[in-house]
Structures are given as structure tokens and as C-alpha cells.
């Protein structure tokens, strides 16, 4: 039977076990019908490197800060790997460390200053989507990718991160809820508003370019 460890790392099943010896050796053991396969921190964390860096860059919006953020994330995760709890999602754990590291950084503080206190305050951003024009067909054209990327950059942090986690990192609502420490209902509503705000931003740029 083919080992499913790689798949499990992306979306860990509840059968993941953490044995004491392996923990001492900083080694994760995936218990399955196959022979147990061990993964060191390096083996588990490095496949996430590009994704984490991409996410870090979107959060920090700066290459230098993104590198600092990723480096700090890996160092923290390596030190905390021995206490990584069984049955939890390694990928979500890494993203949570990254996000928390960002939120406690200077850029993170600055970004969170603009986060609305309630979801209602996003109405101004989202209401711009009332225009019925659809920019999707235009966005298929690669020449307009920059426009979408700029619109993503301009999204408030709480919208940007949830859209990226769902559409780019392809996380489930539950994973996102765990990572952001919010209920699934909030994930759904914030994601809907975030997408609407993004569409509005693209729409605005398309109108400006016309």
C-alpha cells in the first residue's frame, strides 16, 4: 500500500501519533497501515518553505521582512517541535507561528491598526461590488495579473490573509478557523467579504484603466 504521509502532512488525519522516543529525537511518526515513517523537522518543514515564504511576503509586503519572518518562524518551530502536540496539523501549526510572529512584529502592529473592530465596518470596502460587471473573464488574461496582485496587496490584512489561505494555500475552512482562532461561521462570512472586496478592488482598477 502506498504511503500517504505526504498527503497527511498537508491534511493530517486523526491517526497521527507522536511516540515518546520519536519526540525525544525530534521525529514525527505517522501511524498507518504501512510501516511507520519518521520525519525529522527538516523533512516536515522544508516542503512548506515556498508556501510559507509566499504567505510571509503577502503579509509583510517586503522581501527583507518576509525573509526575517520566515527565518524566525523556522527557528521558533524548531525549538518548539518537541512540544508539538499529537493529532494536530503540522502545516497549520507552522502557519500559526508565522502569523503570530508577523502580528507581533512592527509591520504586523501597523497592519492590525487598520483592522476594523467589527465585520460591519467592512461594508465600505465590500459595497463597491454592487456593480454587476464581472472582471473574471478579463483576469484570465495574464496581462491583468498585476492588477489582481495590486488589488490583493491593497486588501486589508484580515481579508488578504483569509483569501490567500483559502484560494492559494487551499486550506479547509476548519484549518483556517484553527489557524486564525475564529469560528467557522466567521471564516465563511469574512472570506465572502474578502472576495467581494477583492472583486471591488479589481473592478475599480479596470474602470480606472478604461
Amino acid at each position: 500500500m502506498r504511503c500517504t504521509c505526504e498527503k497527511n502532512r498537508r491534511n493530517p488525519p486523526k491517526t497521527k501519533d507522536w511516540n515518546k522516543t520519536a519526540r525525544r529525537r525530534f521525529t514525527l511518526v505517522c501511524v498507518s497501515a504501512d510501516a511507520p515513517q519518521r520525519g525529522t523537522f527538516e523533512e516536515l518543514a522544508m516542503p512548506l518553505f515556498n508556501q510559507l515564504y509566499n504567505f510571509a511576503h503577502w503579509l509583510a509586503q517586503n522581501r527583507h521582512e518576509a525573509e526575517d519572518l520566515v527565518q524566525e518562524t523556522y527557528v521558533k518551530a524548531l525549538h518548539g517541535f518537541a512540544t508539538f502536540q499529537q493529532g494536530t496539523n503540522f502545516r497549520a501549526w507552522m502557519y500559526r507561528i508565522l502569523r503570530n510572529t508577523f502580528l507581533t512584529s512592527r509591520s504586523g502592529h501597523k497592519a492590525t491598526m487598520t483592522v476594523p473592530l467589527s465585520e460591519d465596518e467592512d461594508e465600505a470596502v465590500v459595497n463597491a461590488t454592487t456593480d454587476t460587471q464581472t472582471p473574471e473573464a478579463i483576469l484570465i488574461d495574464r496581462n491583468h495579473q498585476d492588477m489582481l496582485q495590486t488589488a490583493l496587496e491593497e486588501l486589508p490584512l484580515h481579508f488578504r490573509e483569509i483569501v490567500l489561505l483559502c484560494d492559494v494555500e487551499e486550506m479547509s475552512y476548519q484549518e483556517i478557523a484553527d489557524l486564525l482562532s475564529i469560528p467557522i461561521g466567521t471564516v465563511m462570512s469574512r472570506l465572502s467579504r474578502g472576495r467581494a472586496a477583492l472583486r471591488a478592488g479589481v473592478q475599480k482598477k479596470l474602470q480606472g484603466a478604461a
Partner: protein
Amino acid sequence: MSTDDNATQQSGIQHDQWRAQLDAYLDGELPADQMRALDAHLRSCPGCAADALNRVQFKRAVKTAGARFTPSPQFRDRILKKVASKPRRSWTFTWVLAGAFAVLLLAGLLTAYQQRQNLREQQFAGEIADLHVSTLASPNPVDVVSTDRHTVKPWFQGKIPFTFNLPDLQNTDFTLLGGRVTYLGQVPGAHLIYQIRKHQISVFIFPEDLVALHNTPHDAKTRSFTLHTFAQDGLRYIIFGDVARDDIDKLSTMLQAAAHSS
């Protein structure tokens, strides 16, 4: 409000309800029954189907645009060095390594001790040979000239800090020529000269703790001389000469018997 208006309004509300579920539908997060219901609706409603298509296209565009930043290979290498797993030795391997190290250390110590002991014994044999040769080369090799053991033994009284017995040489090929006081390691001892045929044999008697020899009786060959030593009653007897091994052994046996009879 006309019946047609009501129907249109109700239809609009229904469409809004369907569209509110579209994101969760496209994200694969709707429960199975709702998924099937919305699937059926999309097949029958061109407006909602077009909206779903737009959303799919937008989601794909976001995925492409979102995967924008790539780390440099140098940065990747830097992080890899930080997190690279160092080979961890198992406890078994550590114990085996420690055991091997202990064995090597012990073997090294034993070898060093053995070499030191061999060196001391070589030095000892060399000094005995020097005493033997220099005595025989002297015009007066002995200070007490006598073939009588009862003359030679008392002569040492007051000259050395111990006493000893000498064998009766009647009916043997050995002859006692005499004795002298000698020193080895600044310790006084008796040096007796025996003769067998034309060969002269030295017998040295010292306190036993003067020379710590592992093997007693101890035999060695030094510069073609034969050395035999044994310890008895706190005394170290060293028999040294250029005679055959058998002659040395015979004299040794007689000396041991005499020492034992005391």
C-alpha cells in the same frame, strides 16, 4: 403588487439564497445534500451557473496571482542549514562507542604499563650485567675470598641489612669463590661469585622490594648472558652468568633449597 411581480420577487430571493452558498460550494465546504441540491439548481438556472463560472474563474485567477513570491535559493540554503537534522546517535550506538573507547583506553594503559615495565626490567638486567662484568674485570673481584659458605655468610654481617643461607656445594660442579658488598639502586646487597668449570656466575641477593618484577621466577637474556631471578622470604635472588641454562637452574634450585631451610 401583481402575481407576476410576487413570483419574480420570490424567484429573486431564492436565487440570492443559492448564490449565498456558491462560495462554500466552490470551496467544497457544503454538506453533501446541499451540494447535490445546488448542483441540480445550477443545471437548471443559467444565471446562477454564469455566476458560479465567474467565481471559479476569479478563484483560479486569485490562486495564480497569489502564488507570486518565490524565495531565493540562497535564503533557502540558509534556512536549511539552520534546521538540518544533525545525525543523532542512538543510545546503543553511544554505549558501544563508549565501550570501545573504554577498551581502547584500557588497552592503551596496559600497553603503556607493560612497556614501562619492560623498560624497567631491561634497565634492571642491564645494571646486573654491568655489575657482573665490572666485578669480573676487577683485579679483586671479591672482598671475602673463601670457598666456605660458613666464612662468606658471616662476612656480610653488619654490612648489609639482611642475612641469607648459602647452599652446601659438596658433590656438585659448583665452587664458591667469595663475595662482596654491592649496590643496586643505592640499596646494599650481597654479590657472590660461583664457578662451574671455567665459567663464573654472579648471585646477587637484595631485599625483594628493591626490584618489582612481575614474573618470578623471571628469566631473561641480556647480551647473551642468562639471567634468572626468584624471590623467597623477602629476598630477591638474581643469578647471572654466561653458562648454560641448566647450570643456572641447578644453582637456583640449590639456593632456593638453602633459603627454604633457614
